[in-house]
């Protein structure tokens, strides 16, 4: 049921500035945009850090032997004639 306080509130509701929605929406858009940027950057940065510390992209330890003291093993099918 309506009363004087509710009537007063209804009058004031109509005074809502129409430009406010645009301001909120643009803020919302920028949050959305920066959320995407952060998602892209953070996942890229995590993957890079993981690779730097000796893991592959999945976070598992790297399979290749990266010990500098040992002679690198060439990939299969790429042996040169020295071994013959």
């Amino acid at each position, binding site marked *: 049921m309506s*009363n004087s*306080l509710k009537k007063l*509130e209804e*009058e004031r*509701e109509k*005074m*809502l*500035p129409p430009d406010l929605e645009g301001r*909120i*929406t643009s803020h919302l858009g920028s949050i959305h945009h920066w959320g995407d940027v952060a998602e892209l950057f953070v996942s890229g940065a995590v993957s890079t850090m993981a690779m730097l510390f000796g893991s592959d992209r999945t976070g598992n330890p790297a399979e290749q032997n990266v010990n500098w003291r040992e002679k690198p093993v060439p990939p299969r099918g790429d042996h040169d004639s020295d071994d013959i």
Partner: protein
Amino acid sequence: MTAALTNSSKRLSDAELISLFLQGRDTSYFTQLYRRYAGKVFAKCYSMLSDEGMARDATQDIFIKILGSLARFTENSSFSTWLYAVTYNYCIDIIRRRKKNLLIFTEDPGKISDEIETDVPDSLILDMETRRLERVMDKIPPGDRAILNMKYIDDMPVREIAEVLHKTESAIKMQLMRAKAKAQEVYHELYGDKPVGQ
């Protein structure tokens, strides 16, 4: 935002809009929530702050604030109750910061005296001519204004008002009586013995 999405989102409940917004981060769901409640939030801010410009800024801040805390919203209460609680507390906080010595309530609801008071009838507020009511509301302490708004505009039970303002139910009941008594006192100061009605 597509028109089809907007039309379909009009039929969704508040909880569904929040859930869809959080799942897919589609801004149109939040825009729909804004359209439902912005007018009410603005009106409450205007009533509490008595200034159109401040009410506009406060409405913007409140929606940005809830945008950041939507994930923490639980369905223990309705979204409107939660939003109005944020609105009233935000406005009271602004008033406190702006005027440090201002009395927020007629009397601190935490300190209830034992004096017996006569309850002013609700009709004093509910039937008062709107322009007079506007002036009376502007002259009573902001905390009292918030309690009267929650009780007679938002139809909130005393238990919910107590939760919003972090007070006990008995303190709120007493404060409600005092707020009405204060409104009556201000009315008599402004309009003498004129009847409150239109």
